[in-house]
């Protein structure tokens, strides 16, 4: 309980520090949204008028105060360019990115954990070398290239087996669940294969480190076969390590899948962030970054709590 309280306090302090860093870092960037809105042939007075209209002529501390006051009330502000509430913008983008990540992660786990176990179970050095090779090659595939290969194989129009849409998210969004899900299959496979390869490596080394503690021999001495010992006892003991890796991977994928989102023309969180930054829509960018940072912290918190639940030795 005391641990939880300390952890939560750290969480709040962390958020505050992050908000200051984000706010200041963005102010250092050259260029501003008013010049972009005014375009190449507008007189300078128009730029000034736009700056005033958007409140960019106020002192930095006032702008920061206004932003934080909004955050405390749960108001993430309104994007200056699109005129939409940032929370709603992030919501629509998250409705693409999160299902993509979850689908990708499921595929990654479905590939990574069994192959990781198999890599440890394999007895001949040659088989182990093959698994090692697969893991390295799989992890080294550039996302862009992997995606293009999948498009060449399965996309309608250009693929060998033209069954899936090559790009885009349906206009209706999740109101059209079939098409929405279909549009995520290829990108999720691309992500899944690549992340799956690193999941395989993590599973393998986690199992090996568990094996090195002698628990596997113990289990075998109790009558289990080596396969049983590794998959039942070994995996159970390796779980805390794997949970950390999965948690961190999940958080990283939010922006990490950006290349994939661009390739498949999915308007997700990562590409949205880059767009907004390119337009210097600072209110949108700072709130988006803040939400991401908060999410990272929450994941970290959950991972820590999960650790304690999974590993009784860490109790109190």
């Amino acid at each position, binding site marked *: 309980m005391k641990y939880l309280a300390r952890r939560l306090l750290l969480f709040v302090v962390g958020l505050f520090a992050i908000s200051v860093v984000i706010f200041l870092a963005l102010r250092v960037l050259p260029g501003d949204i008013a010049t972009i809105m005014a375009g190449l042939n507008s007189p300078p007075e128009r730029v000034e*008028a736009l700056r005033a209209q958007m409140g960019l002529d106020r002192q930095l501390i006032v702008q920061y105060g206004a932003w934080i006051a909004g955050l405390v009330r749960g108001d993430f502000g309104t994007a200056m360019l699109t*005129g939409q509430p940032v929370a709603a913008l992030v919501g629509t983008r998250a409705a693409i990115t999160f299902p993509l990540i979850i689908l990708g992660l499921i595929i990654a786990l479905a590939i990574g954990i069994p192959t990781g176990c198999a890599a440890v179970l394999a007895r001949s050095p040659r088989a182990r070398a093959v698994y090692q090779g697969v893991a390295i090659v799989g992890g080294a595939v550039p996302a862009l290239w992997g995606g293009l290969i999948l498009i060449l194989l399965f996309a309608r129009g250009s693929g060998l087996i033209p069954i899936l849409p090559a790009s885009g998210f349906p206009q209706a969004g999740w109101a059209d669940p079939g098409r929405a899900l279909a549009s995520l299959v290829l990108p999720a496979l691309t992500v899944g294969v690549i992340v799956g390869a690193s999941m395989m490596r993590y599973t393998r080394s986690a199992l090996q480190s568990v094996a090195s503690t002698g628990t596997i021999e113990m289990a075998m001495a109790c009558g289990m076969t080596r396969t049983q010992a590794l998959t039942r006892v070994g995996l159970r003991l390796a779980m805390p390590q794997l949970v950390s890796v999965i948690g961190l991977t999940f958080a990283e994928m939010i922006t990490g899948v950006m290349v994939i989102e661009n390739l498949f023309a999915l308007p997700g969180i990562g590409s949205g962030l880059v767009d907004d930054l390119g337009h210097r829509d600072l209110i949108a960018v700072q709130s988006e970054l803040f939400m991401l940072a908060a999410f990272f912290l929450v994941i970290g918190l959950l991972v820590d709590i999960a650790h304690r639940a999974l590993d009784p030795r860490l109790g109190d």
Partner: protein
Amino acid sequence: MTATNGANGAHGESGATEGHTNQQDTAFSTDASLQAHAKRPGGGPRRSIWAIVAVIVIAVALIVGFWHPWARKADQTQSSGAADTVAIGLKLAPTNLDIRNTAGSALDQVLIGNVYEGLVARSSENKVVPALAKSWDVSADGLKYTFHLNTGLTFSNGDPLTAEDVVWSINELESKQYHDADALKNSKSVSAPNSDTVVIELTKPYANLLWALTGRAGLVFDKDAKYVAKTQAVGSGPYVVEQFTPNSSITLKANPEYWGAQPKTPTVVVKYFADDNAAVNALKSNEVQVLAPITASLAKPFEDDPAHYTVEAGDGTDKYVLGMNNAAGKPTGDKRVREAIRYAIDHDQLIAARGGADKALGGPIPSLDPGYEDLTGLYPHDVEKAKALLTEAGYTKEHPLKLTLTYANTYGTDIGDQLRSQLKAVNIDLKVNVVEFSTWLQDVYTDKDYDLSLVDHNESHDFTQWSNADYYYNYNNPKVAELTDEALGSTDDAKRDELLAQAARIVSQDAAADWLFNYRVTTAMDKGVSGFPVNMNQTLMPLAELSYTPAVTK
């Protein structure tokens, strides 16, 4: 996408144990014979769970995949065989719909002529043609323009469009200083003598007035309508905005209240692709039927398949301007240096490298604009001459001229590399600095802190930037300003064109900049598409005539 092991404290040393695990494994394998005798079912359940998961994932993927194209086949067609919906793939997306406040040709492209209309419009040859006004008279002294509106004009919300709305729109533009307000020069008053006549009076003649009214400055808005301009649009055009997703897509639906003939296609979906490969795949898979712009190399497969696709390059007013900082004190403030740069650039090579669709351009005015004259002969590619000029200015092989070229990343890195190698031959050591567009805007456009800059000035009729000494070129020639003023003040179009041509020739002779080429947009379309504008379609894309008849076997 790799998480670090170190982040999980107590369990972080898994890597360190790898060294002796091999030993452990071999120790296990001594039990191989024992294990071989073990009862099979023991290892079974775990494995079969994973097998089930894998099967489910694959099954879901396949079912969804197969189901999807069938669902799509339900696309209705009109009785004529033309499709109800046509999708267009574009590149530069608008961030909002507020055409009065937000700059960027992406808004003009999708909204003008489709959702909003002006008194007058532009033809595909960049000439002024009637729109809301069916005709107009200009007084002999060029000070009074009388517009006669069409009858039965309405906005998409059902409100009638009258001369009152026109007057209100222009007055708002000037009082609120909306975008392009400065396009309406010399205006004295706007009035509506009756509900279908609008009179604009000027303090002195302005030759570009009608042309200015074809753009944002002439758009007519509903003075009584209340709507959120960033996300909604109420205009008088043949289409209304049904759905808008910033940076992603716009769905246009035929406006049932439209005063003219209904557009040929009831629904047009405009999709924006940041990634060129995604765009090409969308055309290949028939998710879009039109793609503009497309680069020459990506258009090649479509060109090679004329049975299914049409590929066409259109004329436009895009000028790829290699800006040179004319300010005194800069190396490029020296005319000999600027001339040397112009001689050093092999424009034909640049154009060929881009696929050959673009046109050489020797001066600031492109062929679709008034005052055009072929000036490509002024500075032909001549390496020796360039070297001689630079030597005269004090730069040699031993002491090369160091310059920095700053441009936005939207133009790619190829063009900068080519310029660097071309200028290398004449002893210029060019550093290429590719930045974000907003950084370019700040450093080059606003602060004028640069040597060379590259930007696509796509606006039409923008010659006045050369008579503005405050513009980022730092170019100041009173003679040019004088000729431009005289041209804009003339009441005779032929005289205006002649004066502008004279001024443009001076700008080019001064080597105020180099005009790399006149970019021509390449459009790739499905064979069944007709009525899509090929000329200038990145600034004006009227869609009323667009239709698409799918091939029967596709």
